[in-house]
């Protein structure tokens, strides 16, 4: 296994591209096709947001954080409920000012949460088996799900970003009927891009960012030159908490803040598989691939499947991402941009 096996990856890429282009050849309208494509890309951006949190924590602490979904739910609940309660508590106007203050407070809450997790969960379990740490984050998931709903309530809440839900028509001159694009999705894309830029700047330009990258590269080496590991873990969990907050805000404004947000984050798992556990660009590209693949499969693959086997409805997007990731793992176990792993006895 000296050289990288590129053949199967290229083959898989060709198959994917063919699958992507197939609906065009079978004569569906290009306008509709583009609409699905764009819809998929935007859903993909949202998956990327959740996947980013996974990758950040995995890079810095080697923990596969199953609780990222629960953190998204917790942050979104905090944001939604604080924005609702703050006007009553301190008399600031509801709407944008309340939301902004709630955002700041929720960020603070996520930082405290990061600190608590590091103290209570990570520090006693340091140098344990990765699977044990995964189980611990499963425990954190359950705790956060219960805790969040106990203190914030368990109904469906709204986050109002003040964007109209009306879709807009674009490119009417090029296609018959134009392409419907939701404004919310556009804003989400902009927010996600800003977040990624901020993270890139933070990682590349600040001293803390450099320390984070050093820890990600080699724990022991970083510690031996005096980087405080514990503080770095708090920081990286706090950053992941912030990413979860942003993801929760965007998802929450789209779907409403409810328990299913935590389940939705399970969708980010195939994304990190596809992109590789340690790659931030991988998380973004993986998210886009999964988003597009899922929408395409649902729209173009679902109906024929239902017709062929007389199914009781489609819903193949529930598993499509996972099966895609599974196939991908078979050809390339380390993901698109992951590091090659070599076993030694």
């Amino acid at each position, binding site marked *: 296994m000296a050289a990288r096996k590129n053949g199967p990856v290229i083959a898989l890429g060709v198959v994917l591209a063919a699958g992507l282009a197939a609906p065009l050849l079978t004569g569906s309208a290009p306008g509709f096709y583009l609409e699905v494509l764009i819809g998929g890309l935007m859903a993909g951006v949202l998956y990327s947001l959740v996947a980013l949190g996974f990758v950040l924590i995995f890079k810095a602490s080697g923990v*596969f954080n199953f609780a990222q979904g629960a953190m998204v739910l917790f942050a979104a609940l905090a944001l939604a409920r604080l924005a609702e309660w703050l006007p009553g508590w301190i008399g600031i106007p509801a709407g944008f000012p309340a939301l902004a203050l709630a955002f700041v407070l929720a960020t603070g809450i996520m930082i405290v949460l990061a600190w608590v997790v590091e103290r*209570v*969960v990570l520090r*006693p*379990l340091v140098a*344990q088996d*990765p*699977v*044990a740490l*995964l*189980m*611990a984050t*499963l*425990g*954190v*998931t*359950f*705790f*956060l*799900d*219960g*805790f969040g*709903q*106990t203190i914030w309530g*368990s109904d469906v809440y709204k986050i109002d970003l003040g964007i109209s839900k009306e879709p807009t028509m674009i490119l009417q001159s090029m296609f018959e009927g134009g392409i419907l694009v939701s404004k919310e999705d556009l804003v989400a894309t902009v927010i996600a891009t800003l977040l990624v830029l901020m993270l890139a700047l933070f990682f590349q330009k600040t001293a803390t960012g450099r320390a984070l990258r050093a820890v990600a590269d080699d724990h022991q080496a970083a510690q031996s030159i005096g980087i405080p590991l514990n503080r770095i873990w708090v920081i990286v969990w706090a950053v992941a908490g912030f990413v979860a907050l942003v993801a929760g805000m965007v998802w929450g404004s789209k779907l409403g803040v409810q328990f299913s947000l935590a389940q939705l984050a*399970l969708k980010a*798992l*195939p994304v990190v*598989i596809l992109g590789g*556990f340690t790659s931030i660009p991988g998380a973004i590209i993986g998210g886009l691939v999964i988003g597009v693949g899922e929408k395409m499969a649902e729209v173009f693959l679902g109906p024929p499947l239902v017709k062929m*086997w*007389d*199914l*009781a*409805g*489609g*819903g*193949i997007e*529930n*598993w499509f991402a*996972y*099966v895609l*990731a*599974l196939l991908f*793992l*078979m050809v390339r*176990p380390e993901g698109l941009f992951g590091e090659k792993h070599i*076993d*030694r*006895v």
Partner: protein
Amino acid sequence: MFYRENGQFKASYVEDQQILGIRQDRWFIFGLIAFALFAVPYLASDYMFRAVLIPFLIVSLAAIGLNLLVGYCGQISLGHAAFMGIGAYAAYNLVVRFPQLNFILVLVLAGLIAALVGILFGLPSLQIKGLYLGVATLAAQFFIDWVFARVKWFTNYSPSGSVSTAPIEMFGFKFDTPTERYLLVLVVVIVFALMAKNLVRGHIGRSWMAMRDMDVAAEVIGIRPMYAKLSAFAVSAFYAGVAGAMWGFVHLGSWEPAAFSVNFSLNLLFMIIIGGMGSILGSFIGAAFIVLLPITLNQILPVLGGLVGMNFGTALASHMEFMIFGALIIFFLIVEPLGIARLWAIGKEKLRLWPFPH
């Protein structure tokens, strides 16, 4: 003290190879089995059978299956409830399509079908391991969930998507009362638990443990990884399938695809973490813990809430249950990563050396 093996000499190979080598262990286990078989049917109430004992026994069987895979072979599975679902639906279809089949035969066939599916979804384990494998098994979970929810053939074209079973009948005897059902489940569980106990100390079990401890090293000393891993998936899925068939037929009676969801899978995983990875006894302890915890919390929380003047509704109680669950898992991982079964083993060790500390 009373637990020591002084004076118990093994004079033949048969004696040396007994499952329970120490006389006190043997007495304890035989006593427990005899108690469960002959005393419990007279002591427990119908509610006790329905809500506690039957689910506990069935779920222990599934936990043993998962423990064989995760605890003994080191292959993580986040989709084991799906294999239970396979067993349940396989049994349902067998009963619907071949009504004259004996229920025990149905159970075994359902287990075998689950084992086949287990081998299929175990194939990725040859390429990938650890966390990646966890996600691959999640793929199995979601795909199988979807298949049972959407493909009408499996639910025999029932309009609501849920299926209900006929009462169990064997050799002209109907298993109606909870006591009879409990005894049926108990016998099946005892047989399979002893089989598992035997399996893990034979050459298959040892090759699994070698795989778990270090797969590359195991391969170097001549253990075939494909054979070891796939046999672990097959046996584990077989146990899950049998447990699933009983869960559907004996415990639930009628069920929807959501009965075997990802949350059930995670619960099974928690059982073996809390009970003890790589321990058959641990599977029982963990299952008892997870089955009893919600029932106990439901009883205790309103009382505790009343003491401090709070009113615990059912929603809040279920959230508290989540929290306590999560906290306990973290607690056990930190304090005793090998589970309650390990505490039991330490206790026995102390007794053997008593009154000396070492």
